């Protein structure tokens, strides 16, 4: 609803009063309002949009101002007394709580679903707003010298099914400007929810009550505002979601609450809603109220929500997850259960769907510029491919490695690690070629630092093997091990990770992802800056494996 409105906003000056009226109210006819962060609306005007303002607090069923409003699970609101007669639900055995055994059919055509009675609680926030509105209206004493005005209800005719439209031009006389008099009409049941209203001053001086309307709206805005704060973040509600127990919070706040507990923060009732809140509709009426009363605040809240995370992260613009080793172009599967990482994953999903994966610094090795951190400084950026949400809020996350990085600075945000990272990239092809040529033409080194190990002599020639040859040797080893049915090359593992890539740049990552050797060894790959360097490390492992006695023994297939 937000975008068309802002477009119309530019045109509105060129329209007649009647057209403006129907336009402005038409905006609020829809019960399917959503928030658009880009919306730059002007608030509803006290006299021009009086009808639309009153409609905001009218029950679409009985047309009276809400009496103990209930917001249904579909996000639409109506008076509690307007709820249809509950019926027994058939063929339901789970969860089988008494309040779920009866249900009401949703009276809103757009929904039409069955809502369990237990999910139809009085909307606490909307009820309080109604109370404050009544208080304000009651405190508006008739001003001396106030003159009455004549009002007509005009059926729109667009709702033939609605029997509430009595005559086309019911006429009334009320005091107190447009807002108060239309409210009075609504209270008396003389203003159908779908109907328009015409207002005409009976004042001899031609007073159009604009000042009065503005004052009333100003007070309404001020008092209702207090009820529109979220009890979790203490900000004005942003994208309000109402729980089945009738309590309203910002969608983001409720999602964070559900990361930690499944109970409503206000009444501690167990919340029977999926923790991701993805399917949970916003409270349509509150969204409309917020948009109608203070669209500029809604817009600035939307911006603030986005900016908040960025600002808090500041330079630390990368979400980091200290968990395991991951490699570029290889999949990593994660089971997310801790609240802080649920939040981290959710924020990643809202953003670029990426986060950095780091491994633990188990031995407390000092990391170059960072000192002794809990993680090792080199990691892999992961991109989220799939998230499988479990009913209790845990999730299974499928990711793919993108590129390697090094952490240059780090901090925490809401419990998880964030940091400033620098991409680690391979040297240019020219440099790669130079390295290879340099290696191959070098004088063989006899005294290696690996002296004393049985494989010393064979290790040395790795340095002098051409890069292609290193890859061939790696692939040959894989083939040989597959022939031996090595369990780490089980079909299931190949299905997940794919077969060995023929790209020399990627083969080491694939190999490291499946070979069962310690992570400290594998971690070296993340620091390499040339393909050749990586392959040499991998062939080094292979040589070492091959040199082990148990391997040469033939029958033993521990590996």
């Amino acid at each position, binding site marked *: 609803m937000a975008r068309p409105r802002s477009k119309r906003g530019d045109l509105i000056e060129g329209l007649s009063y009647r057209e403006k009226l129907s336009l402005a109210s038409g905006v609020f006819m829809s019960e399917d309002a959503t928030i658009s962060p880009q919306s730059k609306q002007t608030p509803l005007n006290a006299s021009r949009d009086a009808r639309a303002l009153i409609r905001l607090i009218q029950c679409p069923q009985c047309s009276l101002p809400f009496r103990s409003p209930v917001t249904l699970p579909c996000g639409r609101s109506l008076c509690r007394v307007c709820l249809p007669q509950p019926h027994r639900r058939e063929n339901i055995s789970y969860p089988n709580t008494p309040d779920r055994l009866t249900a009401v059919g949703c009276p809103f055509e757009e929904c039409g679903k069955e809502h369990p009675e237990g999910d139809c609680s009085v909307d606490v926030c909307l009820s309080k707003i109604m109370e404050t509105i009544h208080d304000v209206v009651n405190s508006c004493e008739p001003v001396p010298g106030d003159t009455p005005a004549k009002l007509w209800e005009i059926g729109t005719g667009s709702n033939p099914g609605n029997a509430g439209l009595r005559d086309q031009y019911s006429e009334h006389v009320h005091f107190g400007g447009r807002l108060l008099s239309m409210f009075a009409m609504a209270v008396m049941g003389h203003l159908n929810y779908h109907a328009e209203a015409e207002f005409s001053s009976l004042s001899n001086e031609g007073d159009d009550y604009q000042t009065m309307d503005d004052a009333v709206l100003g007070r309404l805005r001020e008092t209702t505002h207090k009820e529109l704060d979220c009890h979790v*973040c203490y*900000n004005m509600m942003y994208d309000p979601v109402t729980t089945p127990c009738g309590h309203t919070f910002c969608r983001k*706040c409720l999602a964070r*609450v559900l990361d930690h507990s499944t109970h409503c923060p*206000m009444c*501690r009732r167990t919340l029977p809603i999926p923790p991701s809140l993805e399917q949970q509709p916003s409270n349509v009426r509150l969204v409309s109220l917020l948009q109608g009363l203070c669209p500029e605040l809604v817009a600035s809240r939307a911006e603030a929500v986005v900016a908040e995370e960025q600002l808090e992260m500041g330079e630390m613009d990368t979400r980091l997850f200290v968990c395991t080793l991951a490699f570029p172009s290889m999949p990593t599967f994660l089971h997310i259960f801790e*609240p802080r990482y649920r939040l981290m994953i959710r924020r990643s999903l809202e953003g670029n769907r990426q986060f950095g994966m780091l491994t633990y610094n188990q031995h407390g090795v000092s990391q170059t510029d960072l000192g002794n951190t809990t993680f090792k400084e080199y990691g892999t950026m992961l991109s989220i491919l799939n998230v499988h949400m479990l009913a209790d809020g845990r999730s299974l996350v499928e990711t793919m490695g993108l590129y390697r990085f090094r952490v240059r600075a780090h901090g925490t*945000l809401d419990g998880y690690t964030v940091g400033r990272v620098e991409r680690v990239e391979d040297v240019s092809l020219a440099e790669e070629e130079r390295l290879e040529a340099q290696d191959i033409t070098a004088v063989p080194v006899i005294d290696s630092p690996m002296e004393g190990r049985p494989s010393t002599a064979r290790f040395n020639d790795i340095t002098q093997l051409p890069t292609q040859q290193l890859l061939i040797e790696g692939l040959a080893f894989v083939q040989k091990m597959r022939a031996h049915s090595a369990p780490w090359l089980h079909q299931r593992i190949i299905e997940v990770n794919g077969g060995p890539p023929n790209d020399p740049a990627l083969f080491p990552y694939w190999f490291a992802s499946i070979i069962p050797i310690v992570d400290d060894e594998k971690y070296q790959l993340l620091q390499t800056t040339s393909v050749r360097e990586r392959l040499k490390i991998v062939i080094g492992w292979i040589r070492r494996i091959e040199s082990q006695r148990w391997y040469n023994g033939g029958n033993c297939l521990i590996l």
Partner: protein
Amino acid sequence: MALPKRIIKETERLMAEPVPGISAVPHEDNLRYFDVTIDGPSQSPYEQGTFKLELFLPDDYPMTPPKVRFLTKIYHPNIDKLGRICLDVLKSNWSPALQIRTILLSIQALLGAPNPDDPLANDVAKRWKEDQNAAIQTARDWTTQYAKK
């Protein structure tokens, strides 16, 4: 890291409308750390005493409860020698809809209603159950000795 708006608002409200008998003042260099004093409730053994506490708002507050500890020595079955407090709303019954104000009120109420059936200081709780009058007298003595205004 910037301070969440919620903490700023809570602090402002605590300053603007203080709770009678309770004060909470944030440290200038760490706005998540509060110096707290709670007056012992009247009709309790802690009457006439002013107890100092420290309160810290962790990073994920209000999703997790504030950490609160008595600094003044106190003889109470639900408060141990280190000043740690056994109170459900500080643990499993925490809700983000609670706040510093309500938590401190709960602690004040705990002083007025010791619960020796859910003890943290076992020796105190035992004595409280065996000889309540003596235990209350000790609590009174400690209040005079350590929590004198």
